[in-house]
Structure formats: C-alpha cells, structure tokens
C-alpha cells in the first residue's frame, strides 16, 4: 500500500494510459465491427468464413502477436491497438450479429411494409433492438483489452502492465500488488459502467432487466 501512496501520480498516469488504450481499442473495434457485422447479418454465407478467420486471429498468443506487428507499426501503442482491435472483432461481431439476427422477423417485415427505407430501418428499428447485445460485446472487448493490454507494456505501449513487468524484474512485490489492484479496479469499473448502459437499453425494449 505504501508504494501506491508514495507513487500515486505514476500509478494514476499509467491508469489513464491503460484507460486510453482500452477506449482506443473500443473505438476502432466499433469502426470495423459495426459495418462488418451488418454485412454478415445481410449476407448469410459470409458468416462462416469471416467468423472462422476471426476465431483464428483470436488464438494467436498475445505476446507473439504484439512482437509480430513491431516491424510494421514500430514500438508503442500503435501495434498494441492493432492487435487488441483484431482480437476484439470476434467478441464484438459475434454479439452484434446475435443482436441483429434475433430481431423478430415480423418487426422487420412490418417496418419494410410500412415504407421505412434501409437507413431508417437500421437507425429506428435494428440498432436500438440490437443495442443490448452490442453493449454486451463492447463489455467483453473492454474487459479482454484491459487484461491483454497489460502485456502490451512489453512493447512499450505503457499502461498498468509497466508496474507488473517492473515489479517482476526487480522482485518488488508491492509494485506487482499495486499494478494488479489497479487493473482489477479498472476492470470492475468498466464492467459495471457498461453493464449499466446495457440494462438501460434492455429496459427500453423489455421493460425489465434480464
């Protein structure tokens, strides 16, 4: 505990770095995942091949993935964001796709029959109805990025992993403890915050928490 009190500014800075990394990963994941998921929802035969590729990416060990990207993106946060975004696609798209494909067909047929165009159907009907599942996907992405993100400290991406690596090298247990504690706090906070958003989205549709 002493370590945290004496080095609060250092820990806080690393905490913010970690948060920034996670937010960047969520942002880029959504940028790719939302349109890709929509495409898969529309074109059924694409689902198998795309999901297998995403599954294969997910199995690449994180440390080797980071290292593999260094020749292309150099050291620092860029290869970390790329790798974590690539992992995130499986979690995000799987959930988003379930959200989109489990919308009651009658609801979509009614929307079409009433004369809503494709864009209106997406914004007014599909997006709000699939939103709880999308948020569930985002929550998984946040949690996995916070976890795997600690390893990104190895390629100089900063974040709370720095405390862990330094602690291990210097056998400084209070440093390791502080790092682990900070990661846990971040994970819990992220989990509860996104879960809260999920429940709000669910409440609008179902009128109760599920």
């Amino acid at each position: 505990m002493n370590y945290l009190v004496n080095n609060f500014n250092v820990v806080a800075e690393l905490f913010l770095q970690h948060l920034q990394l996670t937010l960047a990963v969520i942002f880029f994941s959504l940028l790719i995942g939302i349109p890709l998921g929509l495409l898969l929802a529309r074109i059924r035969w694409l689902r198998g091949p795309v999901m297998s590729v995403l599954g294969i990416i997910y199995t690449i060990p994180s440390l080797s993935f980071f290292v593999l990207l260094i020749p292309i993106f150099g050291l620092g946060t860029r290869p970390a964001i790329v790798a974590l975004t690539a992992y995130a696609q499986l979690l995000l798209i799987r959930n988003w796709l379930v959200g989109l494909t489990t919308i009651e067909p009658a609801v979509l047929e009614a929307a079409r029959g009433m004369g809503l165009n494709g864009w209106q159907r997406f914004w007014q009907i599909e997006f709000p109805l699939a939103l709880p599942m999308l948020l569930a996907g985002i929550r998984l992405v946040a949690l996995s990025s916070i976890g795997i993100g600690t390893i990104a400290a190895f390629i100089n991406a900063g974040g709370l992993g720095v405390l862990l690596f330094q602690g291990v090298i210097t056998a400084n247990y209070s440093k390791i403890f502080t790092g682990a504690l900070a990661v846990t706090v971040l994970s819990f906070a992220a989990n509860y915050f996104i879960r809260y958003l999920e429940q709000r989205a669910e409440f609008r549709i179902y009128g109760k928490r599920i």
Partner: protein
Amino acid sequence: MTIEMISSSAETIETPVSESGEIVFEHVSKTFATNSYPAVDQVSVRITAGDLVVLLGPSGCGKTTLLKMVNRLYEPDRGKIWIGGKEIHTLPVNELRRQIGYVIQQVGLFPHMTIQKNISIVPRLLGWEEKRINDRLEMLMQLIGLPVSYLPRYPRQLSGGEQQRVGLARALAADPEILLMDEPFAAVDAINRERLQTELIDLHSKLNKTILFVTHDVEEAFRLAKKIIVMRAGKLVQYGSPLELVTQPENEFIEELVGSNNILRKLSLVNVNSILKARENQSFYTSKFQPVEKPSTVLHPEDDLRSVISLLLCSGKDSLPVKDSEDQLLGMVGYSDLREMLISNLPSE
C-alpha cells in the same frame, strides 16, 4: 325541380368512394427460386374501390404472395398490378408502401417504441405537422376503442387483442386508401377474434377503405367478405360474393371448401328482406333455391341434428325416414321433432 333534386342526391350516394382505392391484377405470376411450380399463376382480378375482399384458400395456395405483391414485398415475375389506375412500379417503392396500410398476423409492433410512436411512424415519415399527428392519434384511438391513456405505454403492456388493434391503428395512421391484412386475427383467441372481426366490419363501413384480407378460415371469410377470391395452387378459382360461392360454386373444390352443410351457411348470408323481395318475384324460388330432389334421403341414428336440418331443407320434405345399418326403418323424424328436442332440452340443461 323536384326530379332534379332527387337525381342529384342519388348521385352523391352513388359515388362516396374514391376510385384511387381500386386494385387491378393483370396476369400476375410469381415463382420462388426454391420452387419449381409458381406460387401465383396468371391471376387477373379487379377489386373495386371500397370493397372488403377476402383472399381465401389452403396454406400454400399463393394468397399471401399475391397480397405481398401489392406493396412490393414480393415482386411479380410477370404481369402488372394497378392501384387507382397507376401501375405500382411507377412509384418509388417506399412511397408506395406509405400509401398502403399493412397489418400482419404477428402484429410486429416495435417493442422499444410507445404506442404513440408506433402509430405515428408513417405520418412522421410523411412529414406531417405535430398537431395533425396528435389529432390523428386521438381519432385513431377512438376508432379502435382504446383509451388515450394507452398512448405512452409500450406494446408489451398490452394484451394480444389490444396489440392487434394498435397494429390496425398504425396501418391506418396516414389514412391510406388501401389496407392489406395478412391473417391478422389468426393468433388471437376465439372470443377476441370474433370481437375484432365485428369491429373490422364496423370500421370498414365507416371508413370505406379497400381492404384485402388474407385468411384460410372459411368462417372468417364468410363473416367479413363482401367478395371472396378463392385460390388454389396459385390460381384464382372463383371470385364472387359469399352467396355466389355457396349457390353457384365453380367446382367441387369450392363446394368442399364452403362446406358440405352449406345450406345452413346460406341462412347467415340471406336476410328476411330477401325473402320479402323474393315473394314479389316468384321466379327466385325456382331459380336459386330449388330443392334438391333426392327421394332416397335417409337419416341414420348417429346423424347430428345440424346435418338433419340440412338434409330436411335439401329434401324439401317435412320429415325423413330413419334407418339403421341393416336398412331397418326405425321411424320418421321431422322439423317438429327437432323443435321439441331443442326447446325441451334447453331449460333442463
């Protein structure tokens, strides 16, 4: 002077319906890629504006396909469809759909929107002003018999019958000339179904919309329809009023569809006034309701009384012999026996 007045008032009664609700199918055919046979095969029919027309037939006969081609949820392979003199493909598809009310069996209300938002969605798409939308909402709620206090509620807070009423209000929201209804009451329980049917008849007489109503339920078709289109295997078999279907069935399929005891169904299709009118014109009896001469009509002990009365009516006699399986005569049964049986049984129940 008086003659002029009469003729002009007669004219206004003659043409209360806008012709823009007319639907014409011209050699319409549609084959789905998954099937080798056509779902709809060379259907040509003219539906008069303001009529409530039921598309009737067994499942897979193409009635829903035909309906969905009107609002272009399906595209015909061949043929043309005209609405109020305009071929439907001359309009942008969403513009066309916003002019046509659409009600489906599973209702398909938007679960994340209040009743108010659900109903006002098409008027909003059409850019109506807020005041006009609110007036319309109030009028529609009154029309479907739900309190205005329901407007801020969500669909899940309503019963199945109430949801289908809201579905109907949503379809009527932008005041379309045409309403397409795809088995709208099939998923509602029997009591509510009958109530909804009555309300629809009532609503139709008030609004004068052209309603195209799909069902496989013969009773429902006969209750609602001004005219019935009977389809089978993609083809139009007969198009006529319920009475025409019963009295002049095109073939055995229609005969079977409208029921073997169709003589009783006639009872609900003809009113007392028809009898009074028929008396003035004696030929009515001989031409339309000529008793079927079957001297060999025989009752069996296990026949139910509904078929007995139907057989009595058809035979033109007042009583019929009852025989068992060995052709032994057991006695005679007639109208008076039925009356006694029914009346004496009622209070003791």
